Protein backbone atom coordinates (compact mmCIF):
# COMPACT_ATOMS: atom_id res chain seq x y z
CA UNK A 1 0.00 0.00 0.00
CA UNK A 2 1.43 3.36 -1.05
CA UNK A 3 0.91 6.78 0.48
CA UNK A 4 1.09 9.39 -2.21
CA UNK A 5 2.74 12.67 -1.21
CA UNK A 6 3.56 15.87 -3.02
CA UNK A 7 7.23 16.48 -3.55
CA UNK A 8 7.90 20.01 -2.38
CA UNK A 9 10.93 22.24 -2.34
CA UNK A 10 11.43 21.33 1.30
CA UNK A 11 11.18 17.57 0.78
CA UNK A 12 12.87 17.24 -2.63
CA UNK A 13 16.27 16.37 -1.14
CA UNK A 14 14.75 13.22 0.38
CA UNK A 15 14.57 11.67 -3.10
CA UNK A 16 18.02 12.54 -4.39
CA UNK A 17 19.13 8.89 -4.26
CA UNK A 18 16.55 7.92 -6.86
CA UNK A 19 15.77 11.10 -8.81
CA UNK A 20 18.57 13.08 -10.53
CA UNK A 21 19.19 16.49 -8.96
CA UNK A 22 18.48 18.29 -12.25
CA UNK A 23 14.79 17.35 -11.88
CA UNK A 24 14.54 17.80 -8.14
CA UNK A 25 16.02 21.28 -8.37
CA UNK A 26 13.08 22.29 -10.56
CA UNK A 27 10.53 21.44 -7.87
CA UNK A 28 9.20 24.73 -6.53
CA UNK A 29 9.07 26.31 -9.97
CA UNK A 30 5.71 27.61 -11.11
CA UNK A 31 4.63 24.75 -13.36
CA UNK A 32 6.63 21.83 -11.95
CA UNK A 33 4.94 19.12 -9.95
CA UNK A 34 6.12 15.94 -8.27
CA UNK A 35 4.54 12.99 -6.50
CA UNK A 36 6.18 10.28 -4.47
CA UNK A 37 4.62 7.02 -3.38
CA UNK A 38 5.90 5.81 0.00
CA UNK A 39 5.33 2.22 1.02
CA UNK A 40 3.29 2.35 4.23
CA UNK A 41 4.97 -0.76 5.68
CA UNK A 42 8.61 -0.32 4.74
CA UNK A 43 8.62 3.51 4.47
CA UNK A 44 10.61 3.06 1.30
CA UNK A 45 10.09 4.95 -1.91
CA UNK A 46 7.78 2.89 -4.12
CA UNK A 47 7.39 5.23 -7.06
CA UNK A 48 8.14 8.75 -8.17
CA UNK A 49 6.83 10.97 -10.93
CA UNK A 50 7.91 14.49 -11.82
CA UNK A 51 6.24 16.51 -14.52
CA UNK A 52 5.87 19.99 -15.95
CA UNK A 53 2.59 21.53 -17.09
CA UNK A 54 2.84 23.55 -20.30
CA UNK A 55 0.60 26.29 -21.70
CA UNK A 56 -1.11 27.14 -18.40
CA UNK A 57 -0.39 30.75 -19.18
CA UNK A 58 -1.62 30.63 -22.77
CA UNK A 59 -5.30 31.17 -23.29
CA UNK A 60 -5.49 29.77 -26.77
CA UNK A 61 -3.63 26.50 -26.16
CA UNK A 62 -4.57 23.36 -24.28
CA UNK A 63 -2.67 22.53 -21.13
CA UNK A 64 -0.19 19.72 -21.59
CA UNK A 65 1.77 17.70 -19.06
CA UNK A 66 5.28 16.49 -19.86
CA UNK A 67 6.55 13.70 -17.63
CA UNK A 68 10.21 14.40 -16.88
CA UNK A 69 10.99 11.52 -14.57
CA UNK A 70 9.15 8.33 -13.74
CA UNK A 71 10.30 5.34 -11.75
CA UNK A 72 8.58 2.62 -9.78
CA UNK A 73 9.64 -0.54 -7.99
CA UNK A 74 6.94 -2.58 -9.69
CA UNK A 75 3.96 -2.30 -11.97
CA UNK A 76 1.49 -2.03 -9.08
CA UNK A 77 3.33 0.96 -7.55
CA UNK A 78 3.58 2.53 -10.99
CA UNK A 79 -0.16 2.16 -11.51
CA UNK A 80 -1.00 3.71 -8.14
CA UNK A 81 1.10 6.78 -8.67
CA UNK A 82 -0.25 7.20 -12.19
CA UNK A 83 -3.78 7.33 -10.79
CA UNK A 84 -2.79 10.18 -8.49
CA UNK A 85 -1.02 11.79 -11.43
CA UNK A 86 -4.27 11.69 -13.42
CA UNK A 87 -6.14 13.31 -10.53
CA UNK A 88 -3.59 16.16 -10.45
CA UNK A 89 -3.88 16.62 -14.19
CA UNK A 90 -7.60 17.07 -13.82
CA UNK A 91 -7.00 19.74 -11.19
CA UNK A 92 -4.68 21.58 -13.59
CA UNK A 93 -7.15 21.11 -16.47
CA UNK A 94 -4.57 19.25 -18.53
CA UNK A 95 -5.93 17.87 -21.80
CA UNK A 96 -3.00 15.75 -22.91
CA UNK A 97 0.26 14.37 -21.61
CA UNK A 98 3.45 12.99 -23.08
CA UNK A 99 6.96 11.94 -22.22
CA UNK A 100 10.32 11.26 -23.78
CA UNK A 101 12.46 9.24 -21.40
CA UNK A 102 15.77 7.54 -21.99
CA UNK A 103 15.31 4.58 -19.72
CA UNK A 104 12.15 2.88 -18.55
CA UNK A 105 11.84 -0.63 -17.21
CA UNK A 106 9.30 -3.04 -18.66
CA UNK A 107 7.02 -2.74 -15.61
CA UNK A 108 7.04 1.04 -15.91
CA UNK A 109 6.23 0.88 -19.63
CA UNK A 110 3.43 -1.60 -18.95
CA UNK A 111 1.91 0.69 -16.31
CA UNK A 112 2.11 3.70 -18.62
CA UNK A 113 0.44 1.80 -21.42
CA UNK A 114 -2.29 0.68 -19.06
CA UNK A 115 -2.79 4.33 -18.15
CA UNK A 116 -3.50 5.06 -21.80
CA UNK A 117 -0.11 6.07 -23.17
CA UNK A 118 0.91 4.90 -26.63
CA UNK A 119 4.64 4.27 -26.56
CA UNK A 120 7.37 3.76 -29.12
CA UNK A 121 11.16 3.80 -29.31
CA UNK A 122 12.43 6.68 -31.40
CA UNK A 123 15.12 9.33 -31.78
CA UNK A 124 15.07 11.92 -28.99
CA UNK A 125 14.40 15.62 -29.42
CA UNK A 126 17.57 16.54 -27.56
CA UNK A 127 21.00 16.49 -29.15
CA UNK A 128 24.16 16.48 -27.08
CA UNK A 129 27.13 18.33 -28.50
CA UNK A 130 30.54 18.24 -26.82
CA UNK A 131 32.33 21.56 -26.38
CA UNK A 132 35.23 20.50 -28.58
CA UNK A 133 32.85 19.84 -31.46
CA UNK A 134 31.10 23.20 -30.99
CA UNK A 135 34.48 24.91 -31.01
CA UNK A 136 35.20 23.60 -34.50
CA UNK A 137 32.24 25.42 -36.06
CA UNK A 138 33.06 28.01 -38.74
CA UNK A 139 31.04 30.66 -36.95
CA UNK A 140 33.32 30.33 -33.94
CA UNK A 141 36.38 31.48 -35.92
CA UNK A 142 35.36 35.14 -35.88
CA UNK A 143 35.09 37.19 -32.68
CA UNK A 144 31.70 38.45 -31.53
CA UNK A 145 30.86 42.15 -31.85
CA UNK A 146 31.41 44.33 -28.82
CA UNK A 147 27.69 44.85 -28.25
CA UNK A 148 27.38 41.23 -27.08
CA UNK A 149 28.29 40.97 -23.42
CA UNK A 150 28.22 38.22 -20.83
CA UNK A 151 25.22 37.87 -18.55
CA UNK A 152 27.39 38.52 -15.50
CA UNK A 153 27.83 42.17 -16.55
CA UNK A 154 24.11 42.89 -16.21
CA UNK A 155 22.40 44.35 -13.20
CA UNK A 156 19.32 42.61 -11.87
CA UNK A 157 17.12 45.36 -13.27
CA UNK A 158 18.68 45.15 -16.73
CA UNK A 159 18.24 41.37 -16.71
CA UNK A 160 14.55 41.61 -15.77
CA UNK A 161 13.96 44.34 -18.33
CA UNK A 162 15.59 42.11 -20.95
CA UNK A 163 13.41 39.16 -19.96
CA UNK A 164 10.42 41.49 -20.20
CA UNK A 165 11.50 42.31 -23.76
CA UNK A 166 11.68 38.61 -24.58
CA UNK A 167 8.27 37.74 -23.11
CA UNK A 168 6.59 40.73 -24.75
CA UNK A 169 7.82 39.22 -28.00
CA UNK A 170 6.20 35.94 -26.89
CA UNK A 171 9.60 34.29 -26.70
CA UNK A 172 9.86 31.96 -23.72
CA UNK A 173 12.35 29.43 -25.07
CA UNK A 174 12.09 26.19 -23.13
CA UNK A 175 10.78 27.92 -20.02
CA UNK A 176 7.08 28.61 -19.52
CA UNK A 177 7.98 30.32 -16.25
CA UNK A 178 10.78 32.42 -17.77
CA UNK A 179 9.50 35.67 -16.19
CA UNK A 180 9.94 34.25 -12.69
CA UNK A 181 13.35 32.64 -12.94
CA UNK A 182 16.30 34.40 -11.31
CA UNK A 183 19.40 35.50 -13.14
CA UNK A 184 21.60 33.13 -11.16
CA UNK A 185 19.88 30.16 -12.80
CA UNK A 186 22.00 30.75 -15.88
CA UNK A 187 25.72 30.44 -16.33
CA UNK A 188 26.99 34.01 -16.09
CA UNK A 189 29.96 33.59 -18.44
CA UNK A 190 28.56 31.37 -21.17
CA UNK A 191 25.17 33.10 -21.27
CA UNK A 192 25.21 36.42 -23.07
CA UNK A 193 23.02 39.26 -24.23
CA UNK A 194 22.85 41.95 -26.90
CA UNK A 195 22.99 45.52 -25.63
CA UNK A 196 21.46 48.24 -27.81
CA UNK A 197 21.00 51.78 -26.46
CA UNK A 198 21.80 50.40 -22.96
CA UNK A 199 18.91 47.96 -23.18
CA UNK A 200 18.94 44.21 -23.58
CA UNK A 201 17.53 43.27 -26.97
CA UNK A 202 18.67 39.67 -27.15
CA UNK A 203 19.56 36.75 -24.90
CA UNK A 204 21.33 33.45 -25.16
CA UNK A 205 20.71 31.79 -21.81
CA UNK A 206 22.49 28.60 -20.82
CA UNK A 207 21.69 26.63 -17.68
CA UNK A 208 23.99 24.06 -16.08
CA UNK A 209 21.78 21.03 -15.50
CA UNK A 210 24.52 19.10 -13.77
CA UNK A 211 28.33 19.30 -13.85
CA UNK A 212 29.50 18.91 -17.47
CA UNK A 213 26.00 19.20 -18.94
CA UNK A 214 24.61 22.55 -20.07
CA UNK A 215 21.29 23.29 -21.69
CA UNK A 216 20.49 26.20 -24.02
CA UNK A 217 17.18 27.46 -22.70
CA UNK A 218 16.56 30.71 -24.55
CA UNK A 219 17.82 32.17 -27.79
CA UNK A 220 16.03 35.44 -28.47
CA UNK A 221 16.76 38.56 -30.43
CA UNK A 222 14.58 41.45 -31.50
CA UNK A 223 13.84 41.21 -35.19
CA UNK A 224 15.77 44.41 -35.92
CA UNK A 225 19.13 42.98 -37.08
CA UNK A 226 18.02 39.77 -35.38
CA UNK A 227 19.95 37.33 -37.54
CA UNK A 228 23.29 39.06 -37.09
CA UNK A 229 22.68 39.44 -33.36
CA UNK A 230 21.96 35.71 -33.00
CA UNK A 231 25.14 34.92 -34.92
CA UNK A 232 27.21 37.15 -32.65
CA UNK A 233 25.65 35.69 -29.50
CA UNK A 234 26.51 32.20 -30.72
CA UNK A 235 30.08 33.28 -31.38
CA UNK A 236 30.35 34.80 -27.93
CA UNK A 237 28.94 31.79 -26.12
CA UNK A 238 31.00 29.29 -28.07
CA UNK A 239 34.20 31.13 -27.17
CA UNK A 240 33.09 31.41 -23.55
CA UNK A 241 32.32 27.70 -23.46
CA UNK A 242 35.78 26.90 -24.83
CA UNK A 243 37.34 29.02 -22.09
CA UNK A 244 35.21 27.91 -19.17
CA UNK A 245 34.34 24.28 -19.90
CA UNK A 246 36.17 21.03 -20.45
CA UNK A 247 36.28 19.78 -24.06
CA UNK A 248 34.18 16.79 -23.07
CA UNK A 249 31.45 18.86 -21.40
CA UNK A 250 28.25 18.71 -23.39
CA UNK A 251 25.62 21.15 -24.50
CA UNK A 252 22.05 19.94 -24.75
CA UNK A 253 20.05 21.53 -27.52
CA UNK A 254 16.35 20.71 -27.55
CA UNK A 255 15.01 20.70 -31.08
CA UNK A 256 11.61 21.85 -29.89
CA UNK A 257 10.57 23.82 -32.95
CA UNK A 258 11.29 24.03 -36.64
CA UNK A 259 13.73 26.93 -36.34
CA UNK A 260 15.94 25.09 -33.89
CA UNK A 261 15.72 21.88 -35.93
CA UNK A 262 16.91 23.72 -39.03
CA UNK A 263 19.67 25.47 -37.10
CA UNK A 264 20.92 22.15 -35.68
CA UNK A 265 20.78 20.55 -39.09
CA UNK A 266 22.87 23.36 -40.49
CA UNK A 267 25.43 23.55 -37.68
CA UNK A 268 25.64 19.86 -36.81
CA UNK A 269 24.62 17.91 -39.88
CA UNK A 270 24.16 14.25 -39.19
CA UNK A 271 23.95 14.74 -35.42
CA UNK A 272 21.22 12.58 -33.97
CA UNK A 273 19.47 12.43 -30.65
CA UNK A 274 19.73 9.44 -28.30
CA UNK A 275 17.26 6.57 -28.42
CA UNK A 276 14.32 7.33 -26.19
CA UNK A 277 10.93 5.94 -25.35
CA UNK A 278 8.27 8.40 -26.40
CA UNK A 279 4.72 8.18 -25.17
CA UNK A 280 1.62 10.29 -25.50
CA UNK A 281 -2.09 10.25 -24.83
Amino acid at each position, binding site marked *: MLTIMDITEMSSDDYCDIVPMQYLSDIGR*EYFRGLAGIDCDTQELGSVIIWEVHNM*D*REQADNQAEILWFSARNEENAGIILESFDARLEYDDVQSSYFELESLRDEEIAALEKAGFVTRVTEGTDVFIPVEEIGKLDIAKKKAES*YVVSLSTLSS*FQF*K*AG*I*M*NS*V*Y*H*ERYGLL*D*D*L*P*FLPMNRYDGEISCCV*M*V*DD*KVTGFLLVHMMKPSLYRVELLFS*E*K*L*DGAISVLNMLRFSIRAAQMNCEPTDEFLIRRHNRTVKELCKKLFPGKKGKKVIRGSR
Partner: protein
Amino acid sequence: MGTFLEYVFQTLMYQPTGNDTFDEIVFYSSFFMELAAAVGVVIIVLKNESLRKRKRPIDRLVFGACTLVLTQNVLDMSLVPLVMIDEPWEAPVFYTLLVVNEMLYLAIILQWLICVDYSLYHSVDHIRRRYRYAALPILVVAALETIRIFVATRELDNGDWIVVLTNALHAFKVAVEIGYILIAVMLVKRHDKERREPRFLWLEAFIIPFVIGSLVRYYDAPLLGFGIIFTYAAMSRRDKYIDFKTGLYNSSFLDCIGEYWDKKGYPDASALLAASPGHDEEMAGILSEIQVPNCYIIELGSGRFVLLSHKVRKSALRMTEGLLKDAAQEAEPTFAVVTHDMKRMEGQTMK
Protein backbone atom coordinates in the same frame (compact mmCIF):
# COMPACT_ATOMS: atom_id res chain seq x y z
CA MET B 1 3.97 66.32 -77.81
CA GLY B 2 7.14 65.14 -79.46
CA THR B 3 8.73 68.54 -78.99
CA PHE B 4 7.69 68.61 -75.33
CA LEU B 5 9.26 65.19 -74.73
CA GLU B 6 12.39 66.39 -76.47
CA TYR B 7 12.52 69.38 -74.11
CA VAL B 8 12.07 67.04 -71.11
CA PHE B 9 14.91 64.84 -72.35
CA GLN B 10 17.22 67.83 -72.79
CA THR B 11 16.48 69.13 -69.30
CA LEU B 12 17.07 65.60 -68.00
CA MET B 13 20.58 65.81 -69.44
CA TYR B 14 21.13 69.40 -68.28
CA GLN B 15 21.22 70.44 -71.95
CA PRO B 16 19.68 73.61 -73.45
CA THR B 17 16.66 72.78 -75.56
CA GLY B 18 17.36 75.43 -78.20
CA ASN B 19 14.14 77.24 -77.28
CA ASP B 20 15.44 80.40 -75.56
CA THR B 21 12.19 81.15 -73.75
CA PHE B 22 11.89 77.63 -72.38
CA ASP B 23 15.55 77.54 -71.41
CA GLU B 24 15.30 80.87 -69.58
CA ILE B 25 12.18 79.78 -67.70
CA VAL B 26 13.87 76.58 -66.55
CA PHE B 27 17.10 78.35 -65.68
CA TYR B 28 15.60 81.19 -63.62
CA SER B 29 12.91 79.05 -62.03
CA SER B 30 15.56 76.65 -60.80
CA PHE B 31 17.29 79.56 -59.07
CA PHE B 32 14.08 80.54 -57.29
CA MET B 33 13.34 76.95 -56.36
CA GLU B 34 16.80 76.62 -54.83
CA LEU B 35 16.18 79.81 -52.90
CA ALA B 36 12.78 78.52 -51.75
CA ALA B 37 14.29 75.24 -50.57
CA ALA B 38 17.06 77.02 -48.67
CA VAL B 39 14.61 79.45 -47.06
CA GLY B 40 12.19 76.60 -46.37
CA VAL B 41 14.63 74.58 -44.29
CA VAL B 42 15.73 77.70 -42.41
CA ILE B 43 12.10 78.45 -41.57
CA ILE B 44 11.35 74.95 -40.28
CA VAL B 45 14.42 75.09 -38.05
CA LEU B 46 13.57 78.54 -36.72
CA LYS B 47 9.92 77.61 -36.23
CA ASN B 48 10.52 74.40 -34.28
CA GLU B 49 12.04 74.67 -30.84
CA SER B 50 12.88 70.97 -30.81
CA LEU B 51 14.99 71.36 -33.97
CA ARG B 52 16.77 74.39 -32.54
CA LYS B 53 17.54 72.65 -29.23
CA ARG B 54 18.31 69.27 -30.83
CA LYS B 55 18.00 67.29 -27.61
CA ARG B 56 16.41 64.26 -29.23
CA PRO B 57 18.31 62.11 -31.75
CA ILE B 58 15.59 62.55 -34.39
CA ASP B 59 15.93 66.33 -34.12
CA ARG B 60 19.69 66.10 -34.59
CA LEU B 61 19.21 63.91 -37.66
CA VAL B 62 16.63 66.21 -39.22
CA PHE B 63 18.77 69.25 -38.43
CA GLY B 64 21.64 67.49 -40.20
CA ALA B 65 19.45 66.92 -43.24
CA CYS B 66 18.35 70.58 -43.24
CA THR B 67 21.97 71.71 -43.04
CA LEU B 68 22.87 69.55 -46.03
CA VAL B 69 19.89 70.91 -48.01
CA LEU B 70 20.79 74.49 -47.16
CA THR B 71 24.44 73.96 -48.11
CA GLN B 72 23.60 72.30 -51.39
CA ASN B 73 21.07 74.88 -52.52
CA VAL B 74 23.31 77.82 -51.57
CA LEU B 75 26.14 76.11 -53.42
CA ASP B 76 23.94 75.59 -56.48
CA MET B 77 22.88 79.24 -56.44
CA SER B 78 26.52 80.31 -56.30
CA LEU B 79 27.66 78.21 -59.26
CA VAL B 80 26.33 80.54 -61.94
CA PRO B 81 27.91 83.76 -60.54
CA LEU B 82 31.11 81.77 -60.08
CA VAL B 83 31.22 80.86 -63.77
CA MET B 84 31.03 84.54 -64.65
CA ILE B 85 34.17 85.36 -62.67
CA ASP B 86 37.18 85.42 -64.91
CA GLU B 87 39.93 84.53 -62.51
CA PRO B 88 42.56 81.77 -62.61
CA TRP B 89 41.18 80.17 -59.46
CA GLU B 90 37.61 80.07 -60.81
CA ALA B 91 37.90 76.81 -62.72
CA PRO B 92 39.37 74.61 -59.93
CA VAL B 93 36.91 76.06 -57.41
CA PHE B 94 34.03 75.49 -59.80
CA TYR B 95 34.96 71.90 -60.44
CA THR B 96 35.54 71.24 -56.75
CA LEU B 97 32.09 72.59 -55.99
CA LEU B 98 30.63 70.35 -58.69
CA VAL B 99 32.12 67.31 -56.95
CA VAL B 100 30.91 68.58 -53.56
CA ASN B 101 27.46 69.12 -55.09
CA GLU B 102 27.30 65.50 -56.21
CA MET B 103 28.36 64.33 -52.77
CA LEU B 104 25.78 66.54 -51.06
CA TYR B 105 23.00 65.20 -53.26
CA LEU B 106 23.73 61.63 -52.24
CA ALA B 107 24.38 62.64 -48.64
CA ILE B 108 20.89 64.22 -48.41
CA ILE B 109 19.26 61.00 -49.60
CA LEU B 110 21.36 58.99 -47.13
CA GLN B 111 20.48 61.37 -44.30
CA TRP B 112 16.80 61.03 -45.19
CA LEU B 113 17.16 57.25 -45.07
CA ILE B 114 18.73 57.46 -41.61
CA CYS B 115 15.90 59.75 -40.44
CA VAL B 116 13.36 57.21 -41.73
CA ASP B 117 15.15 54.38 -39.95
CA TYR B 118 15.30 56.26 -36.65
CA SER B 119 11.70 57.38 -36.97
CA LEU B 120 10.66 53.73 -37.25
CA TYR B 121 12.97 52.00 -34.77
CA HIS B 122 14.21 54.74 -32.39
CA SER B 123 17.64 53.19 -31.93
CA VAL B 124 20.86 55.22 -32.06
CA ASP B 125 23.12 52.16 -31.69
CA HIS B 126 21.36 50.46 -34.57
CA ILE B 127 21.87 53.55 -36.76
CA ARG B 128 25.57 53.63 -35.88
CA ARG B 129 26.05 49.98 -36.77
CA ARG B 130 23.87 49.73 -39.82
CA TYR B 131 25.13 52.90 -41.53
CA ARG B 132 28.77 52.62 -40.52
CA TYR B 133 29.90 52.22 -44.14
CA ALA B 134 26.86 53.69 -45.88
CA ALA B 135 28.77 56.82 -46.95
CA LEU B 136 31.42 54.80 -48.84
CA PRO B 137 29.53 54.93 -52.17
CA ILE B 138 29.48 58.73 -51.81
CA LEU B 139 33.27 58.78 -51.48
CA VAL B 140 33.56 56.48 -54.52
CA VAL B 141 31.37 58.86 -56.52
CA ALA B 142 33.53 61.79 -55.39
CA ALA B 143 36.72 60.01 -56.44
CA LEU B 144 35.34 58.97 -59.84
CA GLU B 145 33.84 62.40 -60.46
CA THR B 146 37.20 64.03 -59.67
CA ILE B 147 38.96 61.70 -62.13
CA ARG B 148 36.35 62.38 -64.78
CA ILE B 149 36.62 66.16 -64.42
CA PHE B 150 40.42 65.97 -64.40
CA VAL B 151 40.51 63.95 -67.61
CA ALA B 152 37.82 66.04 -69.32
CA THR B 153 39.42 69.38 -68.49
CA ARG B 154 42.93 68.26 -69.46
CA GLU B 155 41.60 67.30 -72.93
CA LEU B 156 43.73 64.19 -72.87
CA ASP B 157 43.67 61.95 -75.90
CA ASN B 158 41.45 59.43 -74.21
CA GLY B 159 39.26 58.06 -76.91
CA ASP B 160 35.85 56.85 -75.89
CA TRP B 161 36.73 55.83 -72.39
CA ILE B 162 35.78 59.24 -70.92
CA VAL B 163 32.30 58.75 -72.38
CA VAL B 164 32.19 55.27 -70.88
CA LEU B 165 33.40 56.63 -67.52
CA THR B 166 30.79 59.40 -67.57
CA ASN B 167 27.96 57.00 -68.33
CA ALA B 168 29.20 54.45 -65.80
CA LEU B 169 29.49 57.14 -63.15
CA HIS B 170 25.98 58.36 -63.90
CA ALA B 171 24.64 54.82 -63.68
CA PHE B 172 26.49 54.22 -60.41
CA LYS B 173 25.06 57.42 -58.90
CA VAL B 174 21.54 56.46 -59.93
CA ALA B 175 22.07 52.95 -58.49
CA VAL B 176 23.23 54.42 -55.16
CA GLU B 177 20.26 56.83 -55.04
CA ILE B 178 17.78 54.08 -55.82
CA GLY B 179 19.57 51.74 -53.42
CA TYR B 180 19.13 54.14 -50.51
CA ILE B 181 15.47 54.63 -51.37
CA LEU B 182 14.81 50.92 -51.69
CA ILE B 183 16.34 50.34 -48.25
CA ALA B 184 13.87 52.88 -46.86
CA VAL B 185 10.98 51.12 -48.58
CA MET B 186 12.09 47.75 -47.15
CA LEU B 187 12.44 49.22 -43.67
CA VAL B 188 8.89 50.54 -43.81
CA LYS B 189 7.52 47.24 -45.07
CA ARG B 190 9.31 45.37 -42.30
CA HIS B 191 8.10 47.85 -39.69
CA ASP B 192 4.50 47.45 -40.83
CA LYS B 193 4.87 43.68 -40.52
CA GLU B 194 6.57 43.62 -37.12
CA ARG B 195 5.15 46.53 -35.20
CA ARG B 196 1.63 47.50 -34.35
CA GLU B 197 1.90 51.26 -34.17
CA PRO B 198 1.05 54.07 -36.57
CA ARG B 199 4.02 55.08 -38.66
CA PHE B 200 3.83 58.92 -38.83
CA LEU B 201 5.86 58.71 -42.00
CA TRP B 202 5.12 59.07 -45.70
CA LEU B 203 7.88 57.86 -47.94
CA GLU B 204 6.02 59.42 -50.87
CA ALA B 205 6.70 62.85 -49.35
CA PHE B 206 10.34 62.39 -50.36
CA ILE B 207 10.18 59.90 -53.21
CA ILE B 208 7.82 61.93 -55.42
CA PRO B 209 9.95 65.10 -55.32
CA PHE B 210 13.04 62.93 -55.84
CA VAL B 211 11.55 61.33 -58.96
CA ILE B 212 10.47 64.68 -60.41
CA GLY B 213 13.91 66.10 -59.65
CA SER B 214 15.53 63.13 -61.38
CA LEU B 215 13.48 63.87 -64.51
CA VAL B 216 14.03 67.62 -64.48
CA ARG B 217 17.65 67.78 -63.36
CA TYR B 218 17.70 71.55 -62.94
CA TYR B 219 15.27 71.08 -60.08
CA ASP B 220 16.93 68.08 -58.45
CA ALA B 221 18.54 69.89 -55.51
CA PRO B 222 15.56 72.06 -54.52
CA LEU B 223 13.08 69.21 -54.89
CA LEU B 224 15.23 67.08 -52.62
CA GLY B 225 15.03 69.94 -50.15
CA PHE B 226 11.24 70.01 -50.41
CA GLY B 227 11.28 66.26 -49.86
CA ILE B 228 13.10 66.74 -46.56
CA ILE B 229 10.63 69.45 -45.54
CA PHE B 230 7.58 67.30 -46.38
CA THR B 231 9.12 64.27 -44.63
CA TYR B 232 9.71 66.32 -41.50
CA ALA B 233 6.11 67.57 -41.65
CA ALA B 234 4.91 63.95 -41.69
CA MET B 235 7.27 62.82 -38.89
CA SER B 236 6.46 65.75 -36.66
CA ARG B 237 2.81 64.62 -36.45
CA ARG B 238 4.07 62.18 -33.81
CA ASP B 239 5.26 65.10 -31.65
CA LYS B 240 1.74 66.06 -30.58
CA TYR B 241 1.49 62.67 -28.86
CA ILE B 242 4.83 62.87 -27.08
CA ASP B 243 5.58 64.38 -23.70
CA PHE B 244 8.92 66.03 -24.46
CA LYS B 245 10.06 65.88 -20.84
CA THR B 246 9.67 62.13 -20.40
CA GLY B 247 9.75 60.93 -24.01
CA LEU B 248 6.62 58.85 -23.31
CA TYR B 249 3.33 59.10 -25.13
CA ASN B 250 0.70 61.44 -23.66
CA SER B 251 -2.98 60.64 -23.16
CA SER B 252 -3.96 61.80 -26.69
CA PHE B 253 -2.11 58.80 -28.03
CA LEU B 254 -4.64 56.50 -26.42
CA ASP B 255 -7.32 57.45 -28.95
CA CYS B 256 -4.80 57.46 -31.79
CA ILE B 257 -3.57 53.94 -31.18
CA GLY B 258 -7.06 52.72 -30.35
CA GLU B 259 -8.36 53.90 -33.72
CA TYR B 260 -5.29 52.40 -35.45
CA TRP B 261 -5.78 49.01 -33.81
CA ASP B 262 -9.49 49.02 -34.54
CA LYS B 263 -8.78 49.88 -38.17
CA LYS B 264 -6.20 47.09 -38.48
CA GLY B 265 -8.38 44.62 -36.61
CA TYR B 266 -5.81 43.80 -33.94
CA PRO B 267 -7.57 41.83 -31.22
CA ASP B 268 -6.87 41.06 -27.60
CA ALA B 269 -5.05 44.12 -26.37
CA SER B 270 -3.86 44.05 -22.78
CA ALA B 271 -3.53 47.07 -20.56
CA LEU B 272 -1.64 47.40 -17.33
CA LEU B 273 -2.41 50.49 -15.30
CA ALA B 274 0.34 51.72 -12.99
CA ALA B 275 -0.17 54.58 -10.59
CA SER B 276 2.22 56.42 -8.30
CA PRO B 277 0.63 59.80 -7.48
CA GLY B 278 3.19 62.48 -6.76
CA HIS B 279 6.02 60.46 -8.32
CA ASP B 280 5.35 61.10 -12.00
CA GLU B 281 8.96 61.82 -12.90
CA GLU B 282 10.43 58.87 -11.06
CA MET B 283 7.86 56.53 -12.53
CA ALA B 284 8.39 57.91 -16.03
CA GLY B 285 12.13 57.33 -15.62
CA ILE B 286 11.62 53.68 -14.65
CA LEU B 287 9.14 53.11 -17.47
CA SER B 288 11.51 54.65 -20.04
CA GLU B 289 14.14 52.10 -19.01
CA ILE B 290 11.85 49.12 -19.48
CA GLN B 291 10.19 50.33 -22.67
CA VAL B 292 10.10 47.51 -25.20
CA PRO B 293 8.82 47.27 -28.78
CA ASN B 294 5.11 46.46 -29.00
CA CYS B 295 4.47 47.78 -25.50
CA TYR B 296 3.20 51.36 -25.58
CA ILE B 297 3.60 53.40 -22.44
CA ILE B 298 1.11 56.25 -22.15
CA GLU B 299 1.19 58.91 -19.46
CA LEU B 300 -2.35 59.74 -18.34
CA GLY B 301 -1.31 62.41 -15.85
CA SER B 302 -1.45 62.58 -12.04
CA GLY B 303 1.13 59.82 -11.78
CA ARG B 304 -0.95 57.33 -13.79
CA PHE B 305 0.45 55.36 -16.70
CA VAL B 306 -0.97 52.66 -18.89
CA LEU B 307 1.10 49.99 -20.67
CA LEU B 308 -0.66 48.73 -23.78
CA SER B 309 0.38 45.57 -25.55
CA HIS B 310 -0.88 42.69 -27.69
CA LYS B 311 -0.99 38.95 -27.17
CA VAL B 312 0.89 39.09 -23.92
CA ARG B 313 0.57 36.28 -21.41
CA LYS B 314 -0.56 36.87 -17.85
CA SER B 315 2.90 35.93 -16.61
CA ALA B 316 4.39 38.80 -18.64
CA LEU B 317 1.98 41.28 -17.06
CA ARG B 318 2.68 39.88 -13.59
CA MET B 319 6.38 40.20 -14.26
CA THR B 320 5.95 43.82 -15.32
CA GLU B 321 4.01 44.60 -12.17
CA GLY B 322 6.73 43.01 -10.07
CA LEU B 323 9.46 44.85 -11.94
CA LEU B 324 7.80 48.24 -11.45
CA LYS B 325 7.19 47.65 -7.76
CA ASP B 326 10.74 46.42 -7.15
CA ALA B 327 12.21 49.38 -9.03
CA ALA B 328 10.08 51.78 -7.00
CA GLN B 329 11.26 50.15 -3.77
CA GLU B 330 14.89 50.53 -4.83
CA ALA B 331 14.49 54.19 -5.84
CA GLU B 332 15.80 57.01 -3.65
CA PRO B 333 13.48 57.82 -1.92
CA THR B 334 11.32 54.73 -2.28
CA PHE B 335 7.74 55.07 -3.38
CA ALA B 336 4.77 52.83 -3.87
CA VAL B 337 3.27 51.73 -7.17
CA VAL B 338 -0.26 50.44 -7.52
CA THR B 339 -0.98 48.32 -10.57
CA HIS B 340 -4.15 47.01 -12.13
CA ASP B 341 -4.28 44.48 -14.92
CA MET B 342 -7.04 45.25 -17.41
CA LYS B 343 -8.02 43.26 -20.47
CA ARG B 344 -9.74 45.09 -23.26
CA MET B 345 -12.79 43.38 -24.64
CA GLU B 346 -13.40 43.61 -28.35
CA GLY B 347 -15.62 46.51 -29.24
CA GLN B 348 -14.75 48.60 -26.21
CA THR B 349 -12.97 51.89 -26.74
CA MET B 350 -9.58 52.50 -25.24
CA LYS B 351 -10.89 54.98 -22.69
